[in-house]
């Protein structure tokens, strides 16, 4: 629509004519639009130039870039950093293999992943941030090699074909507990890394992934319960869902942090991270239940009736007929919920965990930046805003693509 050229023209129109045409249609279609365009243009130029000038003049950048280690993994021991790094490479490996076997949308995701990793890797290579301590793999090497791993295993997966699908699915399901164990350690010669050392982006990702993975079974059960024909079960499920959805996440975190230790016999000490995880899971389950319920409701009644008429029992009907269809329909919504959760985990700062935002706040408060004129908060917050943004923006794009595909296969 931006370059609508009248079809009667037989000659190729000159570029300048095209530009004038485009400008008239899109910026100066009326005197009112023209005024708006000019005002906005001035505004945009102003903002961009002053922002650009600020980027080059400000002296706070070292605060963000010398502390990348803190932002990404917080106080996770530097000599054990290879463990999260292996986790990243594992994800890259599985992503490549899956993209090779399934193709389609996953290939797009893999290409996006390779692109982002390659660009960031090159940036890290060309503008090396001062790294402290001995790291197994420098950041640029990790980024570039994960891009390479995904690219390479893509072809492996393609060669492997469909027989890789089931093993891959199982591996994906095992990945989450495996990564958590690897990062925690405490077995087979791996030193135990206490959860109070975890933090930064590592913690943000762990919390949000746990939130969605752990809340999945509970959320599905709640959704089924809310649609149950048994009034008692239905009532309990509605009460739970509406109670949780009626209060802010912060109150649930607050409750988890204060009450969870009390609920256990003998008043054991409960790890702050576990408390936050339980709270996030309980919170997320209520929203997941509503999303899944939406999927269940979108199915025609005839599906259950046909299953019943064939003699399938209730459990078989749910597992074989309704749930697979409902879950497929709500994948985009669930990705959206994951994005929200990814952003919302920043609230754990308030109960005293150092996730990405918490790490940033700590860095801003470091005494060595006190002398920097204007403080370093703008630079540090800008960097973590960019990190958050890249993650949620790419995920929301993915969810949009999935949605388009789901809609397309409906017809």
């Amino acid at each position, binding site marked *: 629509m*931006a370059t609508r050229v009248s079809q009667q023209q037989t000659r190729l129109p000159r570029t300048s004519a095209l530009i004038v045409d485009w400008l008239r249609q*899109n*910026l100066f*279609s009326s005197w009112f*639009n023209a005024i*708006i*365009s000019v005002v*906005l*243009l001035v505004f*945009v130029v102003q903002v961009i130039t002053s922002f650009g000038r600020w980027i080059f003049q400000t002296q706070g950048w070292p605060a963000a870039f010398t502390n990348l280690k803190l932002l990404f993994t917080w106080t996770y021991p530097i000599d054990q950093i290879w463990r999260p790094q292996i986790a990243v490479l594992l994800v890259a490996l599985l992503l490549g293999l899956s993209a090779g076997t399934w193709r389609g949308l996953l290939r797009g995701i893999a290409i996006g992943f390779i692109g982002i990793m390659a660009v960031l890797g090159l940036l890290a290579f060309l503008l090396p941030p001062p790294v402290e301590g001995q790291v197994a793999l420098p950041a640029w090497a990790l980024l570039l090699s994960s891009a390479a791993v995904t690219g390479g295993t893509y072809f492996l997966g393609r060669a492997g074909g469909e027989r890789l699908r089931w093993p891959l699915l199982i591996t994906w399901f095992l990945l989450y507990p495996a990564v958590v164990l690897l990062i925690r350690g405490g077995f087979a010669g791996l030193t135990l890394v206490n959860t109070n050392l975890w933090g930064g982006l590592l913690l943000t990702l762990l919390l949000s992934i746990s939130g969605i993975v752990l809340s999945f079974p509970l959320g599905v059960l709640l959704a089924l319960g809310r649609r149950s*024909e*048994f*009034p*008692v*079960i239905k009532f*309990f499920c509605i009460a739970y869902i509406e*109670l949780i959805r*009626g*209060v*802010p*996440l*912060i*109150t649930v975190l*607050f*409750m988890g942090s*204060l*009450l969870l*230790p*009390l*609920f*256990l*016999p003998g*008043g054991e000490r409960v790890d702050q991270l576990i408390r936050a995880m339980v709270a996030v899971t309980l919170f997320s389950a209520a929203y997941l239940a509503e999303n899944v319920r939406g999927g269940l409701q979108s199915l025609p009644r005839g599906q259950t009736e046909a299953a019943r008429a064939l003699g399938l029992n209730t459990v078989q009907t749910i597992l074989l007929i309704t749930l697979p269809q409902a879950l497929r329909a709500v994948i985009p919504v669930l990705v959206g919920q994951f*994005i929200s959760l990814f*952003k*919302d985990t*920043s*609230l754990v*700062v*308030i109960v005293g965990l150092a996730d990405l*935002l918490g790490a940033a*706040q700590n860095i801003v408060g470091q005494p060595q930046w006190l002398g920097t004129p*204007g*403080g370093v*908060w*703008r630079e540090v*917050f800008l960097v*973590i*805003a960019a990190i*958050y*943004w890249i993650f*949620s*923006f790419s995920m*929301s794009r993915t969810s949009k693509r999935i949605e388009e595909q789901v809609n397309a296969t409906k017809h």
Partner: protein
Amino acid sequence: MATSTPPIQRTSIPFYRDTRIIAIIVQVVFAIIVIGGLWWLYANMMNGLRRVNLLPTFSFLTVSAGFPIAESVIAYDPSMTYGQAFIVGILNTVRIAIVGIILATFLGVVLGICRLSSNWLLRNLATAYVEIVRNIPLLLQLIFWFFLTKAFPRVQESIEVGGVLFLHNRGVTLAWPRLADSFSFWVPWLLVGVAVGVIFYVIRRIQFVRRDRPGVALPYALLIALGTALVGFVATFFIAGAWPLVLEIPQLERFNFEGGITVTASFAALLIGLVIYTAVFIGEIVRSGIQAVNKGQREAARALGLTPGQTLRLVIFPQALRIMIPPLTSQYLNLTKNSSLAIAVAYPDLFYVASTINNQTGQAVPVILMLMLSYLSVSLITSLLMNWYNRRIQLVER
């Protein structure tokens, strides 16, 4: 046709195969497990609390709170009780929620319309705004705004915007209309305006009903009332020699601003953050609401011979509004719930006050109960109001 009765022997069904009894058993077992689980948690909690000698009680509510609250809608000082402090928290939450909802709706509608603009630059700027704001955590945005307001200069060197807005590290000072001495001359005009407007509205509605024709009454009634008020406004100037309302420009005194209204940096940061964030979602609702109606309806309306204005007023807007109300309700609720992040910018909302009370008294259980009940009732009241409004527009426009 065979006339013999079919060979049936009435056997009694074992209870574990009877669907009705199975249904009852399943529900009873479920209830026992849930209630038993909750009871187990409750018993553990009470044991634990008994051990540390902190059994839940509400008696602390009548004890003097002893901590100050930075801003309050009602009069408050540290000698007042915890109960009163809690109410201050609730009122502060309601205050930020109401102001936030109004401003976010306004900004959201503007944003939604900009997203549909035919102007390429405007449309894409609006899109950029949406994509930037919604992919960054609200808490980070709030903290950013808070740091920004804290980075403003001292009151004495405050940044002046257009002579009516002053930014400084204590907050934001705004010029605000104040009643002048000549206001009493204007009051009769206002009363007459309201009366005429109401009478006009009633008469028009009766006419519509009698003639059985649809029509617009409210905008005209408002116009009449406003017109009367405006005439009175000017008339007051000529009769009394002074405008009835004056815009009070804040004046810088030695340490502070005199006149106008000043909101604290915390309130300003929270409000800006909530409004900018929520407006994105409201804008998307407005945009998709308008787009959902546009398909075909516009052509159909034009084909019936309605003018573009009538199309917008009678066809597009009522339908878009109907689509928009339910998601808008949930955004309003989200804004209210998100206002609990106030603790990050030190605005004494419900959650902030409650957590302070908990820190001082150690009465976690009653505090959490009160906190949850308050949020639930705020949510409930908001959705009741919106449902009422929703029902009303569905009826009126049918």
